[in-house]
């Protein structure tokens, strides 16, 4: 009856367990062994990153499991977590914000550039659409190509916007030769080939 009540205490004091615990402690604090603090009693040397604070509060005994967990988490080989100091963090934050601002501006500039290119292409197509064979500009009513159908002819018929219609022709664009090799639409050679009868 009495022995059963004392058993847990006896188990704690078992010599083999004490040995292992001491061995672990010695592994845990190899550096402290070399310093002048060899006089610290065995039960004082609980593992902690703040040894002296632990030493101050000797009364509250730490659970050995917690000690084990601490030991394995804060192993001397494990690097200590990196923290910036206050000012360092603020400087880092400043630089980071400036970098984000820079990225944002660059993205904005890229978007504007693309938009400008698109507008200029659009203007060129619009110019071609209203261009007749003599290189004159016709009015909106005379030119063709209004609405979604680019091949639509205007009042003046095929003479107006010939290059525009050709440029808008998407037949066979995706199936064969890549579009990068396509011929640029030009006003020459003329539709009826070489004029052999021409004399000065």
């Amino acid at each position, binding site marked *: 009856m009495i022995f059963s009540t004392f058993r847990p205490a006896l188990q704690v004091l078992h010599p083999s367990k004490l040995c292992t615990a001491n061995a672990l402690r010695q592994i845990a604090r190899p550096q402290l062994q070399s310093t002048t603090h060899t006089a610290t009693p065995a039960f004082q040397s609980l593992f902690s990153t703040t040894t*002296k604070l632990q030493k101050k509060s000797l009364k509250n005994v730490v659970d050995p499991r917690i000690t084990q967990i601490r030991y394995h988490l804060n192993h001397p080989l494990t690097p200590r977590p990196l923290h910036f100091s206050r000012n360092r963090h*603020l400087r880092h934050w*400043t630089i980071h914000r400036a970098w984000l601002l820079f990225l944002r501006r660059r993205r904005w500039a890229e978007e504007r550039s693309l938009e400008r290119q698109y507008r200029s292409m659009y203007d060129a197509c619009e110019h071609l659409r209203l261009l007749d064979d003599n290189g004159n500009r016709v009015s909106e009513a005379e030119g063709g190509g209004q609405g979604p159908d680019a091949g639509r002819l205007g009042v003046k018929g095929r003479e107006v916007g010939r290059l525009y219609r050709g440029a808008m022709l998407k037949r066979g664009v995706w199936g064969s030769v890549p579009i990068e090799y396509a011929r640029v639409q030009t006003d020459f050679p003329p539709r009826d080939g070489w004029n052999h009868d021409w004399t000065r």
Partner: protein
Amino acid sequence: MASIKPSLRQFSTCLRCVRQAGNSNGSLNRSPLRLFSTTPNAWEEVSTQPTTPAAAVPPPPPPPAKDSPASETQTQAEPHSRDDLMKKWGTLDPKLVENKRDERRLLRREGLQPIGSRRRRAVLHRNSIRNTPEVPFEQLPYQCFQEARKILAEDRQEKIKAIETQTLRLNNLMAQDVGVSGGKAAKEARIRSMQNRIDELVILADINDPLVKKNFEDGTGDMNKPIYRYLADQKWRKYKRLILEQRVQQLNLVPDLLPALDLKVDIDLAFGRKKIAPGEFVDSRISETLPRLTVQSFEPGQKLVTVVVVDPDVPVPDKNSFTYRCHFIATNIPISPTETSIPLTRIEHDDVKATDAKNKKIALSWSPPWANKGAPYHRLAIFILEQEQGNPLSVEQIKKTKRQGFILRSFVDKYKLKPIGATLFRTKWDENMAGVMERAGLADQINIEFKRQRVEPLPYKRRTERMR
């Protein structure tokens, strides 16, 4: 020599950080460590003494080694002398201690950890000795940081310019004829959107400033400025408001007391020094006195608010249901971003002193929350109701409100109030409740105990009978 000294100190500071290795090899190894110091250290004198030909002279007594194990055990045996010894160490500033010995002493005597890295502490210590002023944060000589600051400053200038143009446009629009700007509604919508844009730009102009961030984190930001209000609002919405909203929803304040609630102000509830999380059970003894409210508004300008405390869980045994009870009403309380505290106790004191009826603020005085034994918990909801356009309400009229069967919806509609914030705590029967009820004049209620109605089970039927 004098001109050289500061640089030497710097050098020795760095060297002190280095662990001194191999001190058993005599003075040969140690001499490079001594460097420029003119006089040898005490321990060097001691170690070099035996090598001198005058060996017969007894060596001087060794300096008191405070860290040696022998003296440590000795001091542990005599705590009185240890305290005296500790006093001799002088003042140790956790920001300035720079060598291992002083750090150790600081930990041992004061129980304080040193602040910052040893390198930083050494620099600060040196600066404090030399009285060098600290470099302001913006002028810290880091190239990338300075380049970043340039970019941010440029951006800020752009934003300020944009604010100026936008303000000019807004003024032009305000001066414009309604017919030109396409109708009254269209003009108002444009004005609103332009004002929103200006507010946004004002925030954007300052949001990248590291000093603003620092001030806000330190809690020294001026809440009259829009940027600090914005930052505080964001912080509140990220954590505290989510919790409050969840509690309000879980404890069903919204359909039970008000049809809808958009929380706009941050409320901290406390009884004396004890802070109460939303929905927490509060001991009846603690809630016997008036609470202290801290209401942080994030919108500019002063508002007049009415504070109402309602208990929606008053049991009505006759009808087998519940009713409402009003515990407190105070009106015409000013709040603003800088004026956050609502000290209800002080307001009550002022009310007692006030001779003029117009200066009184409390319409219904605090009746301590109480619950009968065995009854389910009572929710005590505290509402902050904004008065329309800052118009003061008549306390005399509100005083006619009946406590029992108080309906918040009709109260809000009657006085044209707008709920901007709410919080709550709960109360139930506890060991102090009897005393609280007696002091509140409810002695007849103390002995009433509620019991759950027994639900009679359905009569048993045999399986065969059920099948039929």
